[in-house]
């Protein structure tokens, strides 16, 4: 059986990788991975690995692009040459420019650009490993990176695709499902304010299929959204734990020092007491005996005269 003929959905209704129709791939996001950038995030969505980095707000060059009323967002999506099976030619392709454009427009809809007039916010997205649905994953990572940079936003954007394989609508297509299926709908969605900021379509859909795809993609976006929130939360809880550990270590050191000091003090006190006791014994009992001896000596008749 050739690849084009194989079934993409098992008889029990699961897909080839064991997911159900509404399951997204295993996703993890890490915020603040780059120390040189103002904000950064690394997303792993199935076999996708994508790094998003934010610089800014900063001075805009060339200056003729400056907007005196709001910041200019410039998003650059690039795929590494080793990110796909066949070597990708390093020059920016039509597809990369298109994704850069749609991502820029999607981010513009949520970032409060009017707070930073005359500035530029640069978002660089590098796909290190691609396995279908990179534009959605890249958008999720980029919005976490922007939030990590401390840039005010109306909401986080989560990205997730839905598509048709074997006349069934499924969510979050992998690379082989995307290629062997009949169509896909990538969606960028801000769940809290309930706004769609990116919607594209590839393939032929009926009206019902499109509406169902959008609903399923939204549901996938909500799952990604919760992971995004956890990523931001984890970064700062990690920092807090590190600080807490440092404080605990310092406290333990301080306590040990104090205990050592106290031990020294008690040793010193004991020595002093011993010395005092020794002194007491020397002067106390002996003194009395000596006194008695002296008295006895005095009372005893001397032999001095007898000898004479």
């Amino acid at each position: 059986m050739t690849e084009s003929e194989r079934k993409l959905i098992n008889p029990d209704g699961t897909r080839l990788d064991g997911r159900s129709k509404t399951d997204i791939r295993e996703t993890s996001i890490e915020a603040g991975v780059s120390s040189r950038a103002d904000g950064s995030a690394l997303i792993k969505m199935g076999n996708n690995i994508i790094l998003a980095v934010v610089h800014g707000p900063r001075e805009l060059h060339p200056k003729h692009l400056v907007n005196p009323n709001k910041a200019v967002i410039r998003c650059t999506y690039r795929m590494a040459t080793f990110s796909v099976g066949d070597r990708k030619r390093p020059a920016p392709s039509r597809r990369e420019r298109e994704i850069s454009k749609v991502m820029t427009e999607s981010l513009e809809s949520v970032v409060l650009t009017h707070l930073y007039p005359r500035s530029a916010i640069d978002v660089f997205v590098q796909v290190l490993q691609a396995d279908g649905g990179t534009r959605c994953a890249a958008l999720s990572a980029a919005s976490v990176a922007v939030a990590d940079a401390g840039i005010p936003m109306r909401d986080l954007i989560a990205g997730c695709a839905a598509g048709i394989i074997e006349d069934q609508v499924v969510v979050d297509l992998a690379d082989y499902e995307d290629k062997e299926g009949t169509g896909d709908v990538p969606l960028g969605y801000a769940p809290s304010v309930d706004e769609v900021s990116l919607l594209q379509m590839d393939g032929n859909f009926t009206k019902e299929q499109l509406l169902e795809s959008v609903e399923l993609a939204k549901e996938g976006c909500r799952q990604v959204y919760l992971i995004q929130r956890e990523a931001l939360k984890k970064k700062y809880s990690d920092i807090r734990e590190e600080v807490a550990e440092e404080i605990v270590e310092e406290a333990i050191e301080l306590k040990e020092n104090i205990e050592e000091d106290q031990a020294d003090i008690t040793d010193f006190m004991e020595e002093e007491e011993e010395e005092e006791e020794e002194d007491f014994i020397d002067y106390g009992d002996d003194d009395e005996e000596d006194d008695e001896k002296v008295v006895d000596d005095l009372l005893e008749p001397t032999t001095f005269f007898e000898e004479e």
Partner: protein
Amino acid sequence: MENEEIRKPVEIKEKDQLVFPGQFIGVIEQFLPGQNTYVEEANIYSTQFGMAHLDRRGLRVKVFPKRKAQLVPTVGDVAVGEIVHASNQMTSIAITSVNGKECVPSYTCLMHISRISRKYLESMDEAVRTGDIVRVKIIDAKTLPLQAESTGINFGVVYAECSQCGGKLKKIGTNKLKCTSCESTENRKMSIHYGSPMALA
């Protein structure tokens, strides 16, 4: 999962709560919107990742961000930067500090000779030279590049090196400097903070 679950308001009446960008905090009948929040259709949302705090009287809600974005200079800010170019009439300054806070990468700022000092200046060399560190005030931020002025005793050169030998310059008069190694004298429009760390504040 429905949006209602994500849009559940945070309970900040007893305790400060961690909020995310776009998190629903409450409605405008409950609180006034404060810093780092925005209002849309009478709902208050957070714009930052940080702690939402209700003030003592329980009227205004604001968010203290965990991370603040880079600074953008505005009118009235006090900036410190290096003179990268000084021509006959204009100087350009690379601003690296705004109101005592670091600003990386630098912002370019222009200063006209008439804005350097209240006195008449024959040439730019009397007031500033390339490589000087100056303390200026932003007077126009409508367009890039920014415009600055250095009139007044607080503003002007705060650090300079000798143009002959590159040695340290010591202040010997109001607007006079003397090199510690080659003993040549130079003129500058000086700030009273010359050589002091107070210049950055």
